[in-house]
């Protein structure tokens, strides 16, 4: 029993840590520091997945953990660093909403996901249900990062943190098949985004996503 509760506490701490780091992303106002925080996010995810692999005795999850570590904690942040430097993107992040309201909204979302998930999964085993509640919080906070930030790199970072939440949910669901495949599919998706930014060099995108400029392209402004 003692062992079980220790396992429980550790995975709890790691999942809670992910939610906390998601909050840290909400108030970063520099691109580089946002990328560093994301690398930390991915590192904690890798630890969490590895821990689940150990606890559930599911060796295939180690593959997922390694993908998270190598790809998301190292390769992507480094690549994005270089893109930011080479393209000379503004290093301050313009946010659409102030930090105060964003943090409040974040707390609201976490409370919402806790209430929803804990109530819905009353019968499931405690580890899975709390994992799921944390995962949903991370997903929603990732969405919040995406909608409150205006430039493309921070939208990508928001999407990747959202995706980390999904991997957390998938590993928490004991014995779920295809976890490795799904994490690979997602990594390809992210690679596409990063390559897309790099090759297409949508430089204008980085400075602003001005919706009124979009109307011009559509030829629909009167």
């Amino acid at each position, binding site marked *: 029993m003692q062992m079980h509760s220790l396992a429980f506490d550790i995975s709890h701490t790691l999942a809670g840590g992910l939610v906390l780091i998601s909050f840290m992303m909400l108030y970063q106002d520099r691109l580089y520091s946002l990328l560093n925080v994301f690398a930390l996010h991915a590192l904690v995810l890798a630890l969490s997945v590895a821990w689940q692999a150990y606890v559930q005795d599911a060796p295939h999850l180690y593959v997922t953990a390694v993908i998270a570590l190598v790809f998301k904690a190292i390769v992507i942040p480094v690549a994005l660093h270089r893109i930011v430097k080479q393209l000379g993107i503004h290093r301050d992040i313009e946010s659409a909403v102030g930090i105060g309201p964003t943090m409040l909204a974040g707390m609201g979302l976490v409370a919402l996901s806790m209430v929803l998930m804990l109530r819905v*999964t009353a019968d499931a085993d405690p580890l899975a249900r709390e994992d799921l509640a944390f995962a949903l919080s991370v997903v929603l906070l990732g969405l919040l990062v*995406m909608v409150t930030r205006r430039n493309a790199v921070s939208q990508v970072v928001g*999407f990747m943190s959202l995706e980390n939440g999904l991997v957390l949910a998938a590993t928490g669901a004991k014995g779920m098949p*295809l976890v490795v495949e799904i994490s690979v599919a997602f990594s390809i998706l992210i690679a596409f*985004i990063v390559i*897309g930014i790099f090759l297409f060099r949508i430089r204008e995108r980085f400075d602003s996503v001005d919706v009124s400029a979009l109307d011009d392209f559509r030829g629909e402004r009167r």
Partner: protein
Amino acid sequence: MASFNPVMAVLLIPICTAALLAALPGYRLTARLNVVASLATFVSALSLFVIDRPPPGPYVLIDDLNIVFIVLNTFVGFTTSIFSASYIAHELETGRLTPVYLRFYHAMFQTMMFGMNLAFVSNNIGLMWVAVEIATLTTVLMVGIYRTHAALEAAWKYFILGSVGIALALFGTILVYMAARPVVGEGQDGMIWTLLIQHAAKFDPALLNVAFIFLFLGYGTKVGLAPLHAWLPDAHAEGPTPISAVLSGLLLNVALYALLRFKILLAANPAAISPGPLMVTMGLVSVVFAAFMLYRRRDIKRLFAYSSIEHMGIIVFAFGMGGPLANFAGLLHMVMHSLTKSAIFYAVGHISQIKGTQRISRIRGLTVTHPALGWGLVVGVVAIAGLPPLGIFMSEFLVVSSTFARQPLLAIVLVFGLLLAFGALTLRLTTVAFGAPRGSTASAEASYVPMFAHLALVLGAGIYLPAPLVLWFQHVAQLLG
């Protein structure tokens, strides 16, 4: 013939051709290969009707429901490949596409067909999710292929919204697995649709409800339902027109199919919420919203993109109402819409190439200068607006009349939306098709066969539906509950 496996054929032909097309140079050869491969895929799909079906395995399932989708998918894929050959030839001449991008385009076209077919045949909800993701990614890349500022903008928007949608759908899929695990057992089994449906009655209803909300929002984004539709018009307007045709005609159906699978799953659990009201609401909102938006369109591809939102709204509404008649109507409407909308995009593709613009105000008097294209467009728009004797009239009539019998108030809102859309479309049609010609009058090197084949099918279905087809659809409508 015992070794011929049609399911593997509809998957392997596209993916192998994709690899081949990525390697081969030259326009003539690759465009032909694209057509031949699409035809082969279509024939293999047709053979599903006659060859004994494989029993449902852990990954592949063939039942009466998905055969309809697969055959429709491969057929429109085939006609689009013919249209695409002549469309792309023009794009190469004008230099909008370079040979490298042409290879890329053809490879992506076949990869997309692979993704869509995989989504249809998969019996595993995880695999289905992966397949939808493949299909989305390839279309994102093709929307951005012209690399103009507007195209990249559209691709980015599509990408971000599509990814968020697909992420929500994955969360929903994980929740379905969580609901299934205590009943079906751990591992692979918890994701196999045929097993899920057998045991669905014993799943935890609360968990299933939340799962469906996520799945509905996730796949609903890809269906293009109203508050989640923002990516759709841009993606349609900025990509090559063959892609607009398959987006409207096929990709929306893929997401719809995923939604229907989960609707059936929910219906099998008596304690879970009924998905109907949710679908009815979103469907109606889409119809009315899109109908209003039609009036303000200045871009011809955007106009028909909004019309797609309207029609997907009607289809989701019909499936949300449920019952044999409404399901039948929804299914018929889906088939008719795919055929008609892709035919319209074939016409619009050639028209915008001739005129060199997509602005409606710069296109006038098409029936005078280009009779075949102009009248093709007229018939197509008449069909999509829901006038008799074409097929869409019949399916819309069925949707409306079955709704009137059960929920007259909803039917009034629906009819209001339909009439609004009808007004907008006829308004635009009269300016584009008739009147004094404007813009270039250069003759078209168009391929008319795909467009007229689709329109003939739609007209034929409006006049006479063969009895076996009706029986088949009725059977499928009952499956949908």
